[in-house]
């Protein structure tokens, strides 16, 4: 009997061991991006843009050209890159502190201009790299190091629903929220990520996929408990699904 390889590392990923904490879902999301680039034959014409945050070093794990942006500014770099070289595939990979807090202006205006690049937005409801501070996406009552009594919505408002916010813009775009807390959801997330790159490849529209992710270390939960926390706490507030399609009526 000959052995057949039925599962391997996508060409768009390197073989470097990541620095991500055990149980963090960044690795899964990296893979979904890499598989999509592979399948669409885009790897060698792709430029990724790294955020500031846990994923700042993601360029060590993706086997494509990369730029490293100042905190929150990745959509502006992506705009400059894509406007200079519309033939390239351009994506940003940003966390919720980077995109939903310090980078909201760059996000909204890139989306509103209809810049034809892709944003992979990883929402884990907390600042990971700096050690677990409150993010705009932190859940009501969630304890973090800067909301030690739990997020008080009277003081700091409610968590920002980025996908819904971007979907309100009139400019056609593709916006979907997915999750990677179960195998079934991972398969669905893969479809969405690939869809985003397909729209870009076709020169169609701006695309953003919000991926609900975990942070066992800063949530103070085990990896398994973290997956359950996504299901029980995040999903009711951050409903999954397609928020906007370029086929929608303008």
């Amino acid at each position, binding site marked *: 009997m000959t052995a057949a390889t039925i599962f391997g590392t996508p060409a768009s990923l390197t073989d470097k061991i990541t620095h991500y904490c055990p149980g963090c879902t960044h690795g899964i999301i990296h893979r979904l991006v890499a598989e999509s680039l592979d399948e669409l034959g885009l790897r060698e014409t792709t430029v990724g843009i790294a955020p500031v945050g846990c994923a700042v070093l993601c360029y060590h794990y993706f086997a494509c*050209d990369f730029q490293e942006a100042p905190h929150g500014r990745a959509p502006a770099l992506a705009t*400059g890159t894509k406007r*200079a070289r519309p033939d390239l595939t351009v994506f940003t990979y940003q966390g919720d502190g980077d995109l939903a807090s310090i980078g909201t202006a760059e996000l*909204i*205006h890139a989306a509103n201009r209809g810049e034809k690049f892709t944003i992979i937005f990883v929402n884990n409801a907390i600042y990971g790299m700096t050690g677990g501070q409150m993010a705009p996406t932190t859940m009501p009552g969630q304890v973090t190091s800067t909301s030690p009594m739990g997020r008080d919505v009277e003081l700091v408002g409610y968590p920002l629903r980025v996908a819904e916010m971007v979907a309100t813009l009139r400019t056609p775009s593709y916006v979907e929220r997915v999750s990677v807390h179960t195998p079934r959801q991972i398969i669905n997330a893969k479809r969405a990520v690939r869809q985003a790159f397909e729209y870009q490849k076709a020169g169609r529209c701006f695309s953003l996929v919000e991926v609900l992710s975990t942070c066992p270390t800063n949530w103070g939960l085990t990896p398994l408990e973290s997956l359950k926390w996504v299901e029980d706490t995040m999903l009711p507030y951050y409903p999954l699904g397609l928020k906007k399609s370029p086929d929608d009526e303008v």
Partner: protein
Amino acid sequence: MAKKLMKGNEAIGEAAIQAGCRHYFAYPITPQTEVAEYLARRMPEVGGVFLQAESEVAASNMLFGASSTGVRTFTSSSSPGISLMAESISYIAGAQLPVVYINIMRGGPGLGGILPAQSDYFQATKGGGHGDYHLLVFGPSTVQEAVDHVILAFELADKYRNPVMVLGDGMIGQMMEPVEFPTDGIPPAPPKPWATVGMKGRPQNLIRSLYLNADELERNNIELRAKYDAMERDEVRFESYHADEAMDVMVVAYGTMARIAKTAIDGLRGSGKRVGLLRPITLYPFPRQAVRDASDRAKAVLVIELSTGQMVEDVQWAAREGVPVHFFGKTGGNIPAPEDISDEITKVLDGKAVPRGLAPLPLEAS
């Protein structure tokens, strides 16, 4: 090409086109908005990209992305806008990217005013953002020189893989003068094998400024410093206007202030006074040796700026010890007339001026 009467800001825009720049990202701010207005019409004519960003923060980061693909790219702004760009300028310097910035200075601090000023000298020449870095900085004194500097800025940005700034003031941007664009061709951009344009057939290219390892970060800083050393050796530019003679007063001024000072100096020389001008053209690298050598021929130095005194610190640092350094400055958009400058020079000539003091040192223990 024949001479053409153009407003400074429009001439700057055209100079960038002539230099082969096809990617301009900017945000409107007085008194340089005409650069953007000119390029909004002109860039489409040459198949270029004009994009009005949502902020100066975004505009400069768009340059960051565009430059990372190897294209020549630039923006224009004025003082408060440049402050907003300072973050990305630091990153761009750290990542060693060629980008050209135009700062048509207005008065500060804060929102300040919209009239001409030279009060961003510190910001431009000493870094402006965080970290150890320098921009190469030009200080044009005519519209023609602004054109020449913009073209040179693109060449030197590419040569050093470093941001270059053309530091004009509101007068340079707003006044109209005859200008000529070079007809003998401008050297094309050199190959940029480091550009992020897809890694087909080669290892990954990475544009970054993060080095978590102390030795790697130090290596990047040493590389940057080596570029600044090379600039200090090879790129110093200045004009000597009767400053190669013995002088009773040597004026040091840059940009439009130098131009007004020349008128005053011509008048005084007409009545037999021994007065000259040393005009820094590159503000970084500062013509330190030239100032030092010229100060050897001067009994006193008078620095004139549209600020309360910024470049004067570099002159004090450069001038021969024992030669008194005086200062005259106007701010708020007030521009001294040639007569005001003549009066100040005469005060120094007559020994009626007090040299600019250095901060007093702590008293030594007796």
